[in-house]
Protein backbone atom coordinates (compact mmCIF):
# COMPACT_ATOMS: atom_id res chain seq x y z
CA UNK A 1 0.00 0.00 0.00
CA UNK A 2 1.42 3.40 -0.97
CA UNK A 3 2.13 5.97 1.78
CA UNK A 4 -0.72 8.05 0.33
CA UNK A 5 -3.19 5.24 0.79
CA UNK A 6 -1.97 4.60 4.36
CA UNK A 7 -2.29 8.32 5.14
CA UNK A 8 -5.76 8.57 3.60
CA UNK A 9 -6.93 5.43 5.37
CA UNK A 10 -5.61 6.78 8.66
CA UNK A 11 -7.16 10.23 8.08
CA UNK A 12 -10.48 8.65 7.16
CA UNK A 13 -10.63 6.38 10.21
CA UNK A 14 -9.54 9.21 12.52
CA UNK A 15 -12.12 11.59 11.06
CA UNK A 16 -14.91 9.00 11.19
CA UNK A 17 -14.24 8.17 14.83
CA UNK A 18 -13.59 11.76 15.93
CA UNK A 19 -16.69 13.27 14.31
CA UNK A 20 -19.22 11.73 16.73
CA UNK A 21 -16.75 11.94 19.62
CA UNK A 22 -15.94 15.58 18.88
CA UNK A 23 -19.64 16.34 18.46
CA UNK A 24 -20.52 14.87 21.84
CA UNK A 25 -17.59 16.48 23.65
CA UNK A 26 -17.78 19.83 21.85
CA UNK A 27 -21.52 20.21 22.40
CA UNK A 28 -21.23 19.15 26.02
CA UNK A 29 -18.38 21.61 26.65
CA UNK A 30 -20.34 24.41 24.97
CA UNK A 31 -23.48 23.92 27.05
CA UNK A 32 -22.14 22.51 30.31
CA UNK A 33 -21.80 24.74 33.34
CA UNK A 34 -19.86 22.36 35.62
CA UNK A 35 -17.11 23.95 37.65
CA UNK A 36 -14.33 21.61 36.54
CA UNK A 37 -14.85 22.50 32.87
CA UNK A 38 -11.55 24.42 32.56
CA UNK A 39 -9.69 21.32 33.76
CA UNK A 40 -11.40 19.10 31.22
CA UNK A 41 -10.71 21.63 28.46
CA UNK A 42 -7.06 21.90 29.48
CA UNK A 43 -6.67 18.12 29.36
CA UNK A 44 -8.43 17.87 25.99
CA UNK A 45 -6.41 20.65 24.40
CA UNK A 46 -3.05 19.46 25.78
CA UNK A 47 -2.00 17.88 22.45
CA UNK A 48 -2.05 21.37 20.91
CA UNK A 49 1.02 22.45 22.89
CA UNK A 50 2.69 19.19 23.92
CA UNK A 51 5.53 18.03 21.63
CA UNK A 52 4.26 15.04 19.59
CA UNK A 53 7.17 12.99 20.88
CA UNK A 54 5.92 13.43 24.45
CA UNK A 55 2.47 12.20 23.46
CA UNK A 56 4.12 9.37 21.54
CA UNK A 57 6.17 8.42 24.59
CA UNK A 58 3.12 8.24 26.85
CA UNK A 59 1.17 6.29 24.27
CA UNK A 60 4.05 3.79 24.02
CA UNK A 61 3.87 3.45 27.81
CA UNK A 62 0.10 2.99 27.60
CA UNK A 63 0.40 0.35 24.87
CA UNK A 64 3.04 -1.59 26.80
CA UNK A 65 1.86 -5.17 27.56
CA UNK A 66 2.66 -4.57 31.26
CA UNK A 67 -0.10 -2.00 31.58
CA UNK A 68 -3.82 -2.72 31.89
CA UNK A 69 -4.61 -0.96 28.59
CA UNK A 70 -1.80 -2.77 26.79
CA UNK A 71 -2.97 -6.14 28.14
CA UNK A 72 -6.53 -5.31 27.16
CA UNK A 73 -5.53 -4.46 23.60
CA UNK A 74 -3.62 -7.74 23.28
CA UNK A 75 -6.69 -9.58 24.57
CA UNK A 76 -8.97 -7.78 22.08
CA UNK A 77 -6.73 -7.61 19.02
CA UNK A 78 -4.44 -10.54 19.63
CA UNK A 79 -1.30 -8.38 19.38
CA UNK A 80 0.14 -5.19 20.94
CA UNK A 81 -0.97 -1.87 19.44
CA UNK A 82 2.57 -0.64 18.88
CA UNK A 83 3.68 -0.66 15.21
CA UNK A 84 0.19 -1.59 14.00
CA UNK A 85 -2.39 0.40 12.04
CA UNK A 86 -5.01 0.25 14.85
CA UNK A 87 -2.33 1.65 17.19
CA UNK A 88 -1.73 4.44 14.72
CA UNK A 89 -5.46 5.23 14.67
CA UNK A 90 -5.59 5.40 18.50
CA UNK A 91 -2.56 7.72 18.54
CA UNK A 92 -4.04 9.85 15.80
CA UNK A 93 -7.32 10.18 17.70
CA UNK A 94 -5.53 11.39 20.82
CA UNK A 95 -3.45 13.93 18.92
CA UNK A 96 -6.37 15.23 16.89
CA UNK A 97 -8.90 15.47 19.70
CA UNK A 98 -8.50 19.26 20.13
CA UNK A 99 -8.79 19.83 16.37
CA UNK A 100 -12.05 17.89 16.40
CA UNK A 101 -13.54 19.40 19.56
CA UNK A 102 -12.66 23.09 19.32
CA UNK A 103 -14.51 24.08 16.10
CA UNK A 104 -17.59 22.17 17.25
CA UNK A 105 -17.46 23.71 20.72
CA UNK A 106 -17.17 27.19 19.18
CA UNK A 107 -20.09 26.53 16.83
CA UNK A 108 -22.38 25.37 19.64
CA UNK A 109 -21.23 28.17 21.96
CA UNK A 110 -22.37 30.74 19.42
CA UNK A 111 -25.86 29.21 19.31
CA UNK A 112 -28.13 31.50 21.40
CA UNK A 113 -29.75 29.71 24.34
CA UNK A 114 -32.99 31.56 23.58
CA UNK A 115 -33.24 29.85 20.18
CA UNK A 116 -32.93 26.40 21.76
CA UNK A 117 -35.41 27.37 24.46
CA UNK A 118 -37.82 28.62 21.80
CA UNK A 119 -37.59 25.19 20.18
CA UNK A 120 -38.36 23.40 23.48
CA UNK A 121 -41.26 25.74 24.24
CA UNK A 122 -42.53 25.13 20.70
CA UNK A 123 -42.75 21.47 21.67
CA UNK A 124 -39.66 20.14 19.88
CA UNK A 125 -38.06 17.21 21.69
CA UNK A 126 -34.29 17.39 22.42
CA UNK A 127 -33.67 15.13 19.41
CA UNK A 128 -35.86 17.22 17.10
CA UNK A 129 -34.25 20.40 18.46
CA UNK A 130 -30.86 18.95 17.56
CA UNK A 131 -31.96 17.86 14.12
CA UNK A 132 -34.03 20.91 13.10
CA UNK A 133 -32.25 23.70 14.95
CA UNK A 134 -28.81 22.84 16.29
CA UNK A 135 -27.41 20.83 13.38
CA UNK A 136 -28.34 23.31 10.62
CA UNK A 137 -26.88 26.15 12.66
CA UNK A 138 -23.62 24.37 13.56
CA UNK A 139 -22.82 22.32 10.45
CA UNK A 140 -20.04 24.74 9.54
CA UNK A 141 -18.32 23.89 12.80
CA UNK A 142 -18.70 20.17 12.07
CA UNK A 143 -17.25 20.65 8.58
CA UNK A 144 -14.33 22.63 9.97
CA UNK A 145 -13.73 19.92 12.55
CA UNK A 146 -13.65 17.06 10.02
CA UNK A 147 -11.48 19.02 7.58
CA UNK A 148 -8.96 20.02 10.22
CA UNK A 149 -8.74 16.49 11.60
CA UNK A 150 -8.35 14.98 8.11
CA UNK A 151 -5.66 17.45 7.04
CA UNK A 152 -3.80 17.33 10.32
CA UNK A 153 -3.75 13.53 10.29
CA UNK A 154 -2.29 13.53 6.77
CA UNK A 155 0.63 15.62 7.98
CA UNK A 156 1.15 14.08 11.44
CA UNK A 157 4.72 12.93 11.94
CA UNK A 158 6.10 12.67 15.48
CA UNK A 159 3.49 10.50 17.13
CA UNK A 160 3.09 8.39 13.97
CA UNK A 161 6.78 7.62 13.89
CA UNK A 162 6.99 6.77 17.57
CA UNK A 163 3.86 4.64 17.80
CA UNK A 164 3.64 3.24 14.28
CA UNK A 165 7.25 3.08 13.27
CA UNK A 166 7.97 2.89 9.54
CA UNK A 167 6.49 -0.32 8.20
CA UNK A 168 5.84 -0.09 4.49
CA UNK A 169 2.20 -0.57 3.54
CA UNK A 170 1.10 -0.64 7.17
CA UNK A 171 2.30 2.44 9.08
CA UNK A 172 4.42 4.37 6.57
CA UNK A 173 2.42 7.54 5.99
CA UNK A 174 3.26 10.35 3.54
CA UNK A 175 5.08 12.41 6.17
CA UNK A 176 7.18 9.37 7.16
CA UNK A 177 7.83 8.71 3.48
CA UNK A 178 9.10 12.29 3.03
CA UNK A 179 11.43 11.84 6.00
CA UNK A 180 12.58 8.49 4.57
CA UNK A 181 13.18 9.92 1.11
CA UNK A 182 15.21 12.82 2.46
CA UNK A 183 17.28 10.41 4.54
CA UNK A 184 17.95 8.44 1.34
CA UNK A 185 18.76 11.70 -0.61
CA UNK A 186 15.77 10.99 -2.89
CA UNK A 187 14.78 14.67 -3.00
CA UNK A 188 12.51 14.30 -6.04
CA UNK A 189 10.15 11.84 -4.29
CA UNK A 190 10.28 13.96 -1.13
CA UNK A 191 9.38 16.98 -3.27
CA UNK A 192 6.34 15.31 -4.86
CA UNK A 193 5.04 14.15 -1.52
CA UNK A 194 5.64 17.59 -0.03
CA UNK A 195 3.81 19.43 -2.83
CA UNK A 196 0.87 17.05 -2.46
CA UNK A 197 0.68 17.65 1.31
CA UNK A 198 1.09 21.40 0.82
CA UNK A 199 -1.81 21.56 -1.62
CA UNK A 200 -4.02 19.34 0.53
CA UNK A 201 -3.31 21.45 3.63
CA UNK A 202 -4.04 24.64 1.70
CA UNK A 203 -7.32 23.19 0.45
CA UNK A 204 -8.27 22.11 3.97
CA UNK A 205 -7.58 25.58 5.37
CA UNK A 206 -9.61 27.14 2.57
CA UNK A 207 -12.55 24.88 3.43
CA UNK A 208 -12.21 25.77 7.12
CA UNK A 209 -12.06 29.49 6.35
CA UNK A 210 -15.02 29.29 3.98
CA UNK A 211 -17.05 27.47 6.61
CA UNK A 212 -16.61 30.28 9.15
CA UNK A 213 -19.95 32.15 9.55
CA UNK A 214 -18.26 35.54 8.98
CA UNK A 215 -16.93 34.72 5.51
Amino acid sequence: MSPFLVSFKLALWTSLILLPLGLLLGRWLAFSKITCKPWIEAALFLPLILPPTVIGYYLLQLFSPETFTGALSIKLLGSPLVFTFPGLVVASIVVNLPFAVQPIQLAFSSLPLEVREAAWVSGLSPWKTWWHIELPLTWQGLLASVTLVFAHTLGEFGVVLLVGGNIEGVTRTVSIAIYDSVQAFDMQTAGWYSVALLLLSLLALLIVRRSQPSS
Partner: protein
Amino acid sequence: MSSALTVCIEQSSPIKLDVRLSCKPGELLALVGPSGSGKSTVLRTIAGLHQPGAARVACGSSLWQDSQSDINLSPQQRRVGMVFQHYALFPHKSVLENVMLAIHDRPRGERRQQALEWLARTNMTGLESRKPAQLSGGQRQRVALARALAREPAVLLLDEPFSAVDQQTRRKLYRELAQLRRDLHVPMLLVTHDISEVQQLADSLCLIHRGRSLQQGDVQQVINAPRNKETAKLLGHQNLIPARVLSKGRDHTVHELESGEQMRGPACDFESGSSVILLVPPTTISIRDTPSEPQGINCLRGTVTDAVGLGDELSVRLHLDTVAKALRFRVPLHVARQRNIHAGVALDVKIRDTDIHAIAAERS
Protein backbone atom coordinates in the same frame (compact mmCIF):
# COMPACT_ATOMS: atom_id res chain seq x y z
CA MET B 1 -61.72 24.19 27.82
CA SER B 2 -59.31 26.86 29.04
CA SER B 3 -58.20 26.97 32.64
CA ALA B 4 -56.78 29.52 35.04
CA LEU B 5 -53.08 29.63 35.75
CA THR B 6 -51.88 29.71 39.34
CA VAL B 7 -48.23 30.21 40.16
CA CYS B 8 -46.34 30.07 43.44
CA ILE B 9 -42.56 30.36 43.36
CA GLU B 10 -40.06 30.40 46.21
CA GLN B 11 -36.32 30.59 45.73
CA SER B 12 -33.43 31.86 47.81
CA SER B 13 -30.66 31.94 45.18
CA PRO B 14 -29.28 33.07 42.72
CA ILE B 15 -31.98 35.74 43.11
CA LYS B 16 -34.55 35.68 45.87
CA LEU B 17 -38.03 34.90 44.61
CA ASP B 18 -41.32 34.91 46.47
CA VAL B 19 -44.04 35.23 43.88
CA ARG B 20 -47.69 34.31 43.97
CA LEU B 21 -50.03 35.12 41.12
CA SER B 22 -53.02 33.86 39.26
CA CYS B 23 -54.46 34.59 35.84
CA LYS B 24 -57.90 33.68 34.51
CA PRO B 25 -58.59 32.44 30.95
CA GLY B 26 -58.84 35.40 28.59
CA GLU B 27 -57.22 37.71 31.14
CA LEU B 28 -54.05 39.59 30.27
CA LEU B 29 -51.96 39.96 33.40
CA ALA B 30 -49.01 42.34 33.25
CA LEU B 31 -45.96 41.55 35.37
CA VAL B 32 -44.52 44.94 36.17
CA GLY B 33 -41.34 45.87 37.97
CA PRO B 34 -37.93 47.40 37.51
CA SER B 35 -35.19 45.63 35.56
CA GLY B 36 -33.75 42.67 37.45
CA SER B 37 -36.80 42.28 39.69
CA GLY B 38 -37.41 38.70 38.55
CA LYS B 39 -40.27 39.18 36.06
CA SER B 40 -38.67 37.18 33.26
CA THR B 41 -37.61 34.46 35.72
CA VAL B 42 -41.27 34.03 36.67
CA LEU B 43 -42.16 33.60 33.00
CA ARG B 44 -39.29 31.16 32.47
CA THR B 45 -40.42 29.15 35.49
CA ILE B 46 -43.95 28.87 34.08
CA ALA B 47 -42.49 27.72 30.75
CA GLY B 48 -40.29 25.14 32.49
CA LEU B 49 -37.06 26.87 31.42
CA HIS B 50 -36.02 27.77 34.96
CA GLN B 51 -36.02 25.49 37.97
CA PRO B 52 -36.47 27.47 41.19
CA GLY B 53 -35.97 26.07 44.68
CA ALA B 54 -39.67 25.43 45.16
CA ALA B 55 -42.57 26.06 42.82
CA ARG B 56 -46.13 25.14 42.12
CA VAL B 57 -47.41 25.88 38.64
CA ALA B 58 -50.89 24.69 37.77
CA CYS B 59 -53.03 25.30 34.74
CA GLY B 60 -56.54 24.39 35.78
CA SER B 61 -56.51 20.83 37.02
CA SER B 62 -53.24 19.93 35.32
CA LEU B 63 -50.24 20.34 37.53
CA TRP B 64 -47.13 21.36 35.58
CA GLN B 65 -44.80 21.72 38.50
CA ASP B 66 -45.03 20.87 42.16
CA SER B 67 -41.85 20.60 44.17
CA GLN B 68 -43.68 18.88 47.05
CA SER B 69 -44.92 15.99 44.94
CA ASP B 70 -41.86 15.98 42.65
CA ILE B 71 -43.85 16.88 39.57
CA ASN B 72 -41.93 18.81 36.94
CA LEU B 73 -43.13 18.69 33.36
CA SER B 74 -40.66 19.55 30.62
CA PRO B 75 -41.19 22.71 28.51
CA GLN B 76 -42.42 20.43 25.71
CA GLN B 77 -45.13 18.95 27.92
CA ARG B 78 -46.45 22.26 29.30
CA ARG B 79 -48.26 23.64 26.21
CA VAL B 80 -46.94 27.13 26.63
CA GLY B 81 -46.75 29.70 23.85
CA MET B 82 -43.92 32.12 24.49
CA VAL B 83 -42.78 35.27 22.73
CA PHE B 84 -39.19 35.95 23.76
CA GLN B 85 -37.79 39.44 24.30
CA HIS B 86 -35.65 39.22 21.16
CA TYR B 87 -38.14 36.85 19.52
CA ALA B 88 -35.67 33.90 19.24
CA LEU B 89 -36.82 33.02 15.74
CA PHE B 90 -35.02 30.14 14.04
CA PRO B 91 -32.68 32.13 11.78
CA HIS B 92 -32.20 29.41 9.13
CA LYS B 93 -35.91 28.73 8.70
CA SER B 94 -38.39 30.75 6.68
CA VAL B 95 -41.27 32.57 8.33
CA LEU B 96 -43.62 29.73 7.40
CA GLU B 97 -41.24 27.03 8.65
CA ASN B 98 -40.79 28.90 11.93
CA VAL B 99 -44.51 28.66 12.57
CA MET B 100 -44.90 25.14 11.15
CA LEU B 101 -42.30 23.79 13.58
CA ALA B 102 -44.59 24.66 16.49
CA ILE B 103 -47.45 22.56 15.10
CA HIS B 104 -47.27 18.88 15.89
CA ASP B 105 -49.04 15.59 15.32
CA ARG B 106 -50.62 16.66 12.03
CA PRO B 107 -49.90 15.84 8.39
CA ARG B 108 -47.52 18.29 6.70
CA GLY B 109 -50.25 19.80 4.51
CA GLU B 110 -52.44 20.51 7.49
CA ARG B 111 -49.53 22.01 9.43
CA ARG B 112 -48.75 24.27 6.50
CA GLN B 113 -52.36 25.38 6.19
CA GLN B 114 -52.62 26.11 9.88
CA ALA B 115 -49.33 28.04 9.88
CA LEU B 116 -50.57 30.13 6.96
CA GLU B 117 -53.75 30.91 8.86
CA TRP B 118 -51.82 32.06 11.95
CA LEU B 119 -49.56 34.20 9.77
CA ALA B 120 -52.64 35.76 8.19
CA ARG B 121 -54.06 36.54 11.61
CA THR B 122 -50.83 38.28 12.57
CA ASN B 123 -50.78 40.25 9.29
CA MET B 124 -47.80 38.42 7.81
CA THR B 125 -49.40 37.18 4.58
CA GLY B 126 -47.02 37.53 1.65
CA LEU B 127 -43.86 37.26 3.74
CA GLU B 128 -43.99 33.50 4.37
CA SER B 129 -40.83 32.65 2.44
CA ARG B 130 -38.63 35.31 4.02
CA LYS B 131 -35.93 34.51 6.56
CA PRO B 132 -36.00 36.32 9.93
CA ALA B 133 -32.97 38.42 8.95
CA GLN B 134 -35.03 39.88 6.09
CA LEU B 135 -37.77 41.13 8.42
CA SER B 136 -38.22 44.33 10.39
CA GLY B 137 -38.50 44.27 14.19
CA GLY B 138 -42.29 44.48 14.09
CA GLN B 139 -42.54 41.68 11.52
CA ARG B 140 -40.30 39.45 13.64
CA GLN B 141 -42.51 40.10 16.62
CA ARG B 142 -45.56 39.07 14.58
CA VAL B 143 -43.87 35.81 13.48
CA ALA B 144 -42.89 35.09 17.09
CA LEU B 145 -46.50 35.66 18.14
CA ALA B 146 -47.82 33.47 15.31
CA ARG B 147 -45.40 30.70 16.33
CA ALA B 148 -46.44 30.97 19.98
CA LEU B 149 -50.14 30.80 19.06
CA ALA B 150 -49.71 28.00 16.52
CA ARG B 151 -48.74 25.76 19.41
CA GLU B 152 -52.36 26.15 20.60
CA PRO B 153 -51.07 27.00 24.04
CA ALA B 154 -52.84 26.66 27.35
CA VAL B 155 -50.96 29.78 28.49
CA LEU B 156 -49.48 32.63 26.44
CA LEU B 157 -46.31 34.26 27.79
CA LEU B 158 -45.03 37.55 26.38
CA ASP B 159 -41.58 38.59 27.61
CA GLU B 160 -41.18 42.31 26.86
CA PRO B 161 -42.32 41.74 23.27
CA PHE B 162 -42.46 45.45 22.41
CA SER B 163 -39.08 46.51 23.79
CA ALA B 164 -37.16 46.04 20.55
CA VAL B 165 -39.41 48.06 18.23
CA ASP B 166 -39.80 51.77 17.59
CA GLN B 167 -42.66 53.82 19.03
CA GLN B 168 -44.72 53.86 15.84
CA THR B 169 -44.49 50.09 15.32
CA ARG B 170 -45.21 49.57 19.00
CA ARG B 171 -48.50 51.44 18.75
CA LYS B 172 -49.46 49.35 15.72
CA LEU B 173 -48.56 46.12 17.52
CA TYR B 174 -50.55 47.15 20.60
CA ARG B 175 -53.62 47.49 18.40
CA GLU B 176 -52.99 44.15 16.72
CA LEU B 177 -52.52 42.35 20.02
CA ALA B 178 -55.63 43.98 21.43
CA GLN B 179 -57.62 42.70 18.43
CA LEU B 180 -56.07 39.25 18.51
CA ARG B 181 -56.62 38.69 22.22
CA ARG B 182 -60.39 39.00 21.88
CA ASP B 183 -60.41 35.46 20.48
CA LEU B 184 -57.83 34.07 22.87
CA HIS B 185 -59.38 32.36 25.83
CA VAL B 186 -56.22 31.40 27.64
CA PRO B 187 -54.36 33.14 30.49
CA MET B 188 -51.89 35.67 29.05
CA LEU B 189 -48.91 37.08 30.92
CA LEU B 190 -47.07 40.14 29.70
CA VAL B 191 -43.72 41.18 31.17
CA THR B 192 -43.07 44.89 30.92
CA HIS B 193 -41.80 47.86 32.88
CA ASP B 194 -43.84 50.35 30.88
CA ILE B 195 -46.91 51.46 32.84
CA SER B 196 -48.53 53.08 29.80
CA GLU B 197 -48.22 49.74 27.97
CA VAL B 198 -49.94 48.06 30.90
CA GLN B 199 -52.77 50.61 30.90
CA GLN B 200 -53.34 50.11 27.18
CA LEU B 201 -53.17 46.33 27.04
CA ALA B 202 -53.63 44.59 30.37
CA ASP B 203 -56.65 43.71 32.47
CA SER B 204 -54.71 43.19 35.64
CA LEU B 205 -51.32 43.94 37.04
CA CYS B 206 -48.90 42.12 39.32
CA LEU B 207 -46.16 44.31 40.72
CA ILE B 208 -42.87 42.49 41.29
CA HIS B 209 -39.90 44.01 43.09
CA ARG B 210 -36.70 42.32 44.24
CA GLY B 211 -38.25 38.93 43.47
CA ARG B 212 -41.39 39.57 45.52
CA SER B 213 -44.92 39.98 44.19
CA LEU B 214 -46.16 43.06 46.05
CA GLN B 215 -49.67 43.55 44.74
CA GLN B 216 -51.99 42.05 42.16
CA GLY B 217 -55.31 43.38 40.94
CA ASP B 218 -57.19 45.36 38.35
CA VAL B 219 -54.80 47.71 36.50
CA GLN B 220 -56.48 51.00 37.41
CA GLN B 221 -57.18 49.85 40.92
CA VAL B 222 -53.53 48.99 41.57
CA ILE B 223 -52.23 52.15 39.90
CA ASN B 224 -54.67 54.47 41.64
CA ALA B 225 -54.69 52.71 44.98
CA PRO B 226 -51.32 51.10 45.66
CA ARG B 227 -51.14 49.11 48.86
CA ASN B 228 -48.18 50.94 50.40
CA LYS B 229 -45.49 53.53 49.84
CA GLU B 230 -43.08 51.07 48.23
CA THR B 231 -45.72 49.98 45.71
CA ALA B 232 -46.69 53.59 45.05
CA LYS B 233 -43.08 54.59 44.32
CA LEU B 234 -42.59 51.59 42.02
CA LEU B 235 -45.66 52.59 40.08
CA GLY B 236 -44.13 55.99 39.52
CA HIS B 237 -46.11 58.02 42.06
CA GLN B 238 -44.01 60.96 43.22
CA ASN B 239 -46.45 63.12 45.18
CA LEU B 240 -46.58 61.45 48.58
CA ILE B 241 -47.47 63.65 51.56
CA PRO B 242 -47.55 62.45 55.17
CA ALA B 243 -50.86 63.18 56.98
CA ARG B 244 -53.23 62.04 59.75
CA VAL B 245 -56.88 61.06 59.46
CA LEU B 246 -58.74 63.91 61.14
CA SER B 247 -62.37 62.97 60.62
CA LYS B 248 -64.45 60.57 58.61
CA GLY B 249 -67.70 61.25 56.83
CA ARG B 250 -69.99 58.83 54.98
CA ASP B 251 -68.43 59.57 51.62
CA HIS B 252 -65.30 61.47 52.50
CA THR B 253 -62.34 61.69 54.84
CA VAL B 254 -60.60 64.81 56.08
CA HIS B 255 -56.84 64.50 56.53
CA GLU B 256 -54.57 66.88 58.34
CA LEU B 257 -51.06 67.56 57.13
CA GLU B 258 -48.16 67.95 59.58
CA SER B 259 -48.45 71.72 59.10
CA GLY B 260 -52.13 71.72 60.08
CA GLU B 261 -53.58 72.23 56.59
CA GLN B 262 -56.57 70.07 55.77
CA MET B 263 -56.99 67.82 52.77
CA ARG B 264 -60.30 66.29 51.87
CA GLY B 265 -60.32 62.92 50.13
CA PRO B 266 -62.63 60.01 49.39
CA ALA B 267 -63.77 57.68 52.18
CA CYS B 268 -61.03 55.33 53.37
CA ASP B 269 -60.68 52.40 55.75
CA PHE B 270 -58.30 54.09 58.18
CA GLU B 271 -59.45 55.01 61.68
CA SER B 272 -59.44 58.62 62.83
CA GLY B 273 -56.01 59.55 64.14
CA SER B 274 -54.18 57.02 61.93
CA SER B 275 -51.00 58.14 60.25
CA VAL B 276 -51.30 57.91 56.49
CA ILE B 277 -49.52 59.00 53.35
CA LEU B 278 -51.61 60.89 50.83
CA LEU B 279 -51.02 59.96 47.24
CA VAL B 280 -51.71 62.94 44.99
CA PRO B 281 -51.86 62.06 41.27
CA PRO B 282 -50.35 64.89 39.15
CA THR B 283 -53.56 65.10 37.10
CA THR B 284 -55.51 66.18 40.19
CA ILE B 285 -53.37 69.28 40.74
CA SER B 286 -54.50 72.56 39.21
CA ILE B 287 -53.20 76.09 39.56
CA ARG B 288 -55.54 78.36 41.53
CA ASP B 289 -57.07 81.16 39.58
CA THR B 290 -57.26 83.56 42.50
CA PRO B 291 -54.15 83.06 44.57
CA SER B 292 -54.95 86.13 46.64
CA GLU B 293 -57.89 84.33 48.26
CA PRO B 294 -57.29 82.78 51.68
CA GLN B 295 -56.00 79.20 51.64
CA GLY B 296 -58.92 76.78 51.77
CA ILE B 297 -59.29 73.04 52.06
CA ASN B 298 -57.12 71.10 49.54
CA CYS B 299 -55.20 74.28 48.72
CA LEU B 300 -51.43 74.40 49.06
CA ARG B 301 -48.83 77.04 48.45
CA GLY B 302 -45.24 76.56 47.37
CA THR B 303 -42.29 77.79 45.35
CA VAL B 304 -41.40 76.43 41.93
CA THR B 305 -37.93 74.89 42.20
CA ASP B 306 -37.79 73.36 38.77
CA ALA B 307 -39.69 74.00 35.54
CA VAL B 308 -38.71 72.12 32.38
CA GLY B 309 -40.49 72.24 29.05
CA LEU B 310 -41.45 68.79 27.74
CA GLY B 311 -43.10 69.20 24.35
CA ASP B 312 -46.31 71.18 24.82
CA GLU B 313 -46.20 70.88 28.60
CA LEU B 314 -44.13 72.30 31.42
CA SER B 315 -42.97 69.84 34.06
CA VAL B 316 -43.11 71.66 37.39
CA ARG B 317 -41.61 70.79 40.78
CA LEU B 318 -43.32 72.79 43.50
CA HIS B 319 -41.67 72.82 46.92
CA LEU B 320 -44.45 73.27 49.49
CA ASP B 321 -44.05 76.14 51.92
CA THR B 322 -45.52 74.43 54.96
CA VAL B 323 -44.52 70.79 54.49
CA ALA B 324 -41.03 69.58 53.62
CA LYS B 325 -42.34 67.90 50.49
CA ALA B 326 -42.60 68.72 46.82
CA LEU B 327 -45.39 68.19 44.31
CA ARG B 328 -44.65 67.29 40.70
CA PHE B 329 -47.17 67.98 38.00
CA ARG B 330 -47.48 69.28 34.45
CA VAL B 331 -49.00 72.47 33.13
CA PRO B 332 -49.92 73.14 29.49
CA LEU B 333 -47.20 75.34 28.01
CA HIS B 334 -49.57 78.16 27.03
CA VAL B 335 -50.90 78.32 30.60
CA ALA B 336 -47.36 78.34 31.96
CA ARG B 337 -46.47 81.24 29.65
CA GLN B 338 -49.63 83.11 30.56
CA ARG B 339 -48.87 82.83 34.26
CA ASN B 340 -45.14 83.27 33.82
CA ILE B 341 -44.28 80.07 35.67
CA HIS B 342 -40.56 79.58 36.14
CA ALA B 343 -38.16 78.55 38.87
CA GLY B 344 -38.43 80.83 41.89
CA VAL B 345 -42.03 81.98 41.56
CA ALA B 346 -44.63 81.31 44.25
CA LEU B 347 -47.63 79.27 43.20
CA ASP B 348 -50.96 78.29 44.76
CA VAL B 349 -52.43 74.95 43.75
CA LYS B 350 -55.64 73.12 44.45
CA ILE B 351 -55.94 69.35 44.65
CA ARG B 352 -59.10 67.62 43.40
CA ASP B 353 -60.48 65.66 46.35
CA THR B 354 -61.97 62.72 44.45
CA ASP B 355 -58.68 61.14 43.41
CA ILE B 356 -56.55 61.48 46.53
CA HIS B 357 -55.66 58.07 47.92
CA ALA B 358 -54.53 57.36 51.45
CA ILE B 359 -52.03 54.59 52.12
CA ALA B 360 -50.70 53.30 55.43
CA ALA B 361 -47.73 55.34 56.65
CA GLU B 362 -46.01 52.63 58.68
CA ARG B 363 -45.63 50.17 55.80
CA SER B 364 -42.97 52.10 53.95
